[in-house]
């Protein structure tokens, strides 16, 4: 063992660890959290529209509009992330001021993740019992009130656990940020592990990623359970 700890591999990994990891951890968390946040901010309303807007829904919207939303979501979900990243460069430049670097990743990540978030939200919201919605309708609640006071609150546990799925997926995508000059643990794992076979560095990066995912997941699961009032607790 003492051999290993004085081996050049170890020294090199330790050096990289000290110099690059603190920033990388921060970059990973920051990009992931912000992108997921925006993805939810855009995706949740779309998910709501998908559920409430359909024929027989709470607030039907014109069928062509609904189709359009479905198409946009499907289109963005179909474009491989690599290509998406490149295609949105003009947009990134317009919003962030530059198309490169860690912050610039937020735009393609958000654009890749919001359709995903919309589908997850849709799936959660569909679980709210129609009779609960009926109750709110019978009281003359406006579609907006039904959405904000019934549809979303009643599916909060499921929305939270799906948001956890979304943030983990965004974290995975963020590993590709190297393509546009971004940073983060994923990039380190790929650059050192994939391109340079420095597996020790890669493993450390991956372990840190695992810890972050584990953290997100634990918080998500806990919150989902805490907020769920349907369960009988003895």
């Amino acid at each position, binding site marked *: 063992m003492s051999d290993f700890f004085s081996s050049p591999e170890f020294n090199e990994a330790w050096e990289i660890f000290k110099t690059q990891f603190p920033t990388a951890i921060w970059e990973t968390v920051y990009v992931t959290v912000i992108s997921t946040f925006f993805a939810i901010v855009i995706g949740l309303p779309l998910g709501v529209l998908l559920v409430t807007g359909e024929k027989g829904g709470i607030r039907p919207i014109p069928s062509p509009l609904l189709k359009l939303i479905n198409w946009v979501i499907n289109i963005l979900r179909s474009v491989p992330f690599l290509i998406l990243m490149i295609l949105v460069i003009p947009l990134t430049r317009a919003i962030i001021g530059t*198309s490169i670097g860690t912050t610039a990743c937020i735009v393609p990540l958000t654009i890749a993740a919001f359709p995903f978030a919309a589908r997850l939200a849709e799936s959660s919201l569909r679980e709210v019992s129609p009779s609960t919605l009926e109750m709110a309708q019978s009281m003359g609640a406006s579609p907006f009130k039904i959405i904000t006071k019934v549809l979303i609150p009643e599916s909060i546990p499921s929305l939270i656990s799906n948001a956890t799925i979304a943030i983990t997926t965004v974290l995975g995508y963020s590993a590709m940020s*190297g393509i*546009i*000059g971004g940073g983060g643990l994923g990039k380190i794992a790929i*650059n050192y592990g994939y*391109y340079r*076979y420095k597996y020790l560095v890669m493993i450390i990066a991956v372990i840190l990623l695992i810890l972050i995912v584990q953290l997100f997941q634990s918080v998500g699961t806990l919150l989902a359970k805490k907020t769920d009032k349907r369960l009988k607790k003895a």
Partner: protein
Amino acid sequence: GDSSSSGEGSSKGNESITIAIPNDTTNEARALLLLQDKGYIKLKDGAGITATSLDVADNPHNIQFKEVEAAQLPNVLKDVDYAIINSNYAIDAKLNPVKDSLAIEGSSSAYSNILAVKDGRQNDDIIKALKAALESKDVADLIKEKYDGSVVSTVDKPTDGYDESIDYSSLSGKSVTVAASPTPHAEILAKAKEILAKKDITLKITEFTDYVQPNNVVESGEIDANYFQHQPYLDDFNKQNNTHIVSVSSIHVEPLGLYGGKQKNLDALK
């Protein structure tokens, strides 16, 4: 994926030979050109630095090409008869380009990796300073020591790191940004960074794991220079994308080698 060759591919009696080649534009073409040089295949007329396996005109050995990402070639070596691998990947994967390769590109400077900038900026002082640092003896030494023959410096007359024709004091406090591939380019630049730091010039290295964006960001002016490609690739890029990027210096070359996987020698290609 399994792009079998055209041409004589129909001769089913022949046992086919699988060769894994890089799947990116220039490396794929270089690999095919290497095979053509060795006389194993013939490419269509005019197929140059953008050739793909589809451009194989004559394939007497019935070679099946497996296009794989360049960095993955060492990993899949076991699954194929041969693979053509960039030396930098080979050496990281503990293959010795000098001893283990069955055939290797000559260190012809056609594929020398260049420092490139947007046309018109060639004579900017800061670019000149960067160029001088990269052409330094320190960098050449680093390449020699660190890459042990898998990366070869192509600088004829290494400098001391500084260009006498420019006024370094006016550059003090300035910074220059270079887009680079992670390896070996970013590592080589790290040395240049030290050299420039002595003159209070900051070299910012932005790593890209992609072959298109570094040119795009130089063209757009978001980044001052890039260091990841060779001249033929740049020429093709300029032509295809209407960009105006020029080389200011050629720094190093990473020769491609042919390595044996299931085959231990070249007999199968005789």
